[in-house]
């Protein structure tokens, strides 16, 4: 756990002293968090890219610092030189990523940028694994800052005190940079209005690249400075990115002072949360984010963004599937029905998973495609369905059918609740709120041990006797998932689905012809949640157990990848995406340890060359061959 106060070093403290120390410890955390978040927010401000890879840069900073510091001669020069050197190296890496990848997709829809940066996350994970191995690495302590000092009779580590100073110093330097230099003025102008800078004749490329460099240096510095505090490991990237997102969003996207304020808030919240609500520390942060976003939809110091940038050409109308697609679909269905009796147990498990993920992806697609909303937390509803079924089995002794009926209701009810908040916001803020709710759900599953078994999960969620065979269960899952997916498809073609697209295409027009955009989005969100719940329930019975990971961020990201891989603009997209993603991942895991590297590269290549997704690309190719429709 990253958040550890000085409680372990306590020596019969009086309450007040202890609180002061806790506050100091919160400040140190806030400082570290600010370093990372400031880079993220500056990058977002200028490029409008939600950079998932920022956490990877942070992790690289820590690893590189470890290498440099342990190889350079001991002493001040070796340590501090290593830390700064690592930060600069990370800056260069960021620069390379910007020039090779991001620069080419500044005009792409937001979600594709997100997908691309997530590809980078995967690639970096495996490269780091290759370079530094899987074990946790311990760095040396900072020379001159090894000991601790006495504050109010309690000991407080010097290094933490040093960190407390770093945050404000960096904030000060950044403010000077942004307010006292021509470059900084340009960056601020670009943050407010990108077109304007283009009009001023500024070399936009250089500006973006340099901003990316600066942001990466900050991420690298943040990571490098963690070296004396905690071990370096391969999970640093995703754990920090979630927190950095929270800070940036709470502060207001693009706002430096906002990030500082939010880092302070979150850092202290963690420090005191442990004292006051030791049971719900994990929930607390996301709860605060949810509350802030509900009260201030653009964060504490954020401003409403100028109109979202070009979402690309208008989507083509939906219609009956073209012939080749119908044929392919029919063939796939025939295979899915006829082949399994000849398949082994392992293959049946994989096929069952695929069926489940098709529905999961299709449910997310309803939100993202026709709904035009982004969700970073769709796994919440998958997980809520799974937990709904598992809890019913464990505590109520429900049968499998009972559990499977309950699953969509549980997920749908929470979709109704969470959705009411999420669909009021727009763009990244809305996506972040979905993430917050997913994290809240995850934390509850993780920390409410009495009910959910916490990390140990709920075991023994087995299907009823009649469906216990792998083959039977596969057919059950196939029938339910296929049925639900087709139902979603049907809904998209029905007035409600059209109303969803209507409010996505033009809220102005929708409201002007009596469509209640909020209500439509809200119900769409709820429907999608319920459908994900069915998938989750089936998943629970398929595995015989449920763990908090069913609603972890990585599962939400999986769903995003499936939908984006397939293509948001076509109805077959999520299905193809789920097949491709699950199949690819399954195969890659089997043939290579470096499946993340391969998958990440595939994603990056797809984003660069097939921005419409697989189904979209196939459709375009087909239309080109058969002339305009």
């Amino acid at each position: 756990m990253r958040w550890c106060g000085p409680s372990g070093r306590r020596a019969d403290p009086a309450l007040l002293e202890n609180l002061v120390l806790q506050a100091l410890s919160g400040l140190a955390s806030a400082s570290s968090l600010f370093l990372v978040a400031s880079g993220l927010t500056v990058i977002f401000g200028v490029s409008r890219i939600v950079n998932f890879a920022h956490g990877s840069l942070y992790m690289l900073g820590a690893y590189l610092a470890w290498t440099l510091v342990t190889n350079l001669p001991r002493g001040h020069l070796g340590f501090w030189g290593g830390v700064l050197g690592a930060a600069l190296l990370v800056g260069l890496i960021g620069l390379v990523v910007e020039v090779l990848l991001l620069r080419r997709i500044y005009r792409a829809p937001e979600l594709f940028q997100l997908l691309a940066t997530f590809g980078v996350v995967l690639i970096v994970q495996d490269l780091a694994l290759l370079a530094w191995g899987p074990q946790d690495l311990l760095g040396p302590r900072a020379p001159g800052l090894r000991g601790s000092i006495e504050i109010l009779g309690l000991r407080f580590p010097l290094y933490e005190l040093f960190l407390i100073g770093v945050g404000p110093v960096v904030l000060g330097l950044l403010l000077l940079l942004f307010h006292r230099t021509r470059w900084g003025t340009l960056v601020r102008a670009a943050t407010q209005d990108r077109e304007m800078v283009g009009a001023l004749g500024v070399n936009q490329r250089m500006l973006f690249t340099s901003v990316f460099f600066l942001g990466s240096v900050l991420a690298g510095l943040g990571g490098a400075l963690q070296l004396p505090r905690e071990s370096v490991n391969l999970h640093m990237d995703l754990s920090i990115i979630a927190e950095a997102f929270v800070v940036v969003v709470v502060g207001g996207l693009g706002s430096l002072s906002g990030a500082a304020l939010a880092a302070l808030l979150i850092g202290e919240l963690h420090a005191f949360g442990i004292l006051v609500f030791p049971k719900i520390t994990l929930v607390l942060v996301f709860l605060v984010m949810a509350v802030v976003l509900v009260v201030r939809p653009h964060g504490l110091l954020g401003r409403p963004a100028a109109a979202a940038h070009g979402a690309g050409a208008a989507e083509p109308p939906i219609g009956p599937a073209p012939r080749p697609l119908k044929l392919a679909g029919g063939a796939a269905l025939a295979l899915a029905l006829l082949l399994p009796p000849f398949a082994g147990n392992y293959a049946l498990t994989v096929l069952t998973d695929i069926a489940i993920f098709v529905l999961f992806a299709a449910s997310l697609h309803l939100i993202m495609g026709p709904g035009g909303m982004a969700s970073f937390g769709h796994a919440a509803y998958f997980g809520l369905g799974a937990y709904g079924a598992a809890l019913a089995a464990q505590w109520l002794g429900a049968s499998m059918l009972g559990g499977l009926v309950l699953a969509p209701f549980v997920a749908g009810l929470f979709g109704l609740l969470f959705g009411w908040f999420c669909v009021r916001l727009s763009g990244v803020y809305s996506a972040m709120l979905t993430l917050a709710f997913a994290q809240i759900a995850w934390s509850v599953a993780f920390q409410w041990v009495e009910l959910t078994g916490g990390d140990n999960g709920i075991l023994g969620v087995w299907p009823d006797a009649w469906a216990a065979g792998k083959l039977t269960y596969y057919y059950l899952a196939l029938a339910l998932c296929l049925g639900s997916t087709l139902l979603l498809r049907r809904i998209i073609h029905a007035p409600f689905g059209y109303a969803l697209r209507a409010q996505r295409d033009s809220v102005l027009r929708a409201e002007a012809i009596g469509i209640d955009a909020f209500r439509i989005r809200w119900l769409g969100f709820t429907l999608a949640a319920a459908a994900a719940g069915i998938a989750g329930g089936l998943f629970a019975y398929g595995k015989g157990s449920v763990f908090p990971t069913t609603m972890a961020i990585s599962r939400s990201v999986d769903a995003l990848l499936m939908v984006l891989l397939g293509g948001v603009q076509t109805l077959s997209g999520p299905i193809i995406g789920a097949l491709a993603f699950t199949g690819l991942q399954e195969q890659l895991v089997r043939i290579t340890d470096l499946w993340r590297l391969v998958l990440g590269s595939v994603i990056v290549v797809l984003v660069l060359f097939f921005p419409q997704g697989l189904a979209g690309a196939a459709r375009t190719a087909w239309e080109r061959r058969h002339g305009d429709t």
Partner: protein
Amino acid sequence: MATLEVEALEKRFGGVQAVRGVSFAIRPGEMLALIGPNGAGKSTCFNMLNGQLRPDAGRVRLKGRDITGMAPRRVWRLGVGRTFQITATFGSMTVRENVQMALLSHHRRLMRLWRPVARMDASAADALLARLGMAEQAGRPCGILAYGDLKRVELAIALANDPALLLMDEPTAGMAPQERVGLMALTADIARERGIAVLFTEHDMDVVFSHADRILVLDRGTLIAEGAPAAVRADPRVREVYLGSGNMMSPGQGGH
């Protein structure tokens, strides 16, 4: 009874008084033009009439009922169709589907989950489109239409709920001159036929003077003249306002 009565509307944006004490009324079947130079406050007036903006002061009454500050979708349900200065249509749908959406919403069938849209209200939509000369385009995606055609689609959408009042903000911008006169003639026919009150803004004075029954002139938020076309044309204050922009009397100009 007048279809729409507007009383002393006011709207201020920060330091700009966009609309100041505007009052007027429209009868069923009447074509009323609201003209004025750029930035006069025409669109702001429209936005207050259909609920897009809440007026700072003043009243809007539709068929005697107070609708001031009501949300656009509720105003629409009471029978107010609207076209926008910058067209707003559903780009991912065909022309026919755009009109179908308005019809479906009018019949309160939007929450249906089962029957495909393709089979709902399609013929009614086609009839409307045919009336506006858009039958050929019915199957084309709105996302690829020419701007003038989009304006027609908007009109078709606006007519779908059998409105008592039609608000048209620069309905012919982006059209060729002949097309403009044709469209407004058609609109006038439909309005008279169905007793629809039409309020429209327009920069093309040919269109205004040949189709308006009455004209309101707005300048910097204030109504400076009101009356029959001939009277308004002769009004010295109106001439003065339009002198600078010069597009009052010269045909074929305007639109932007």
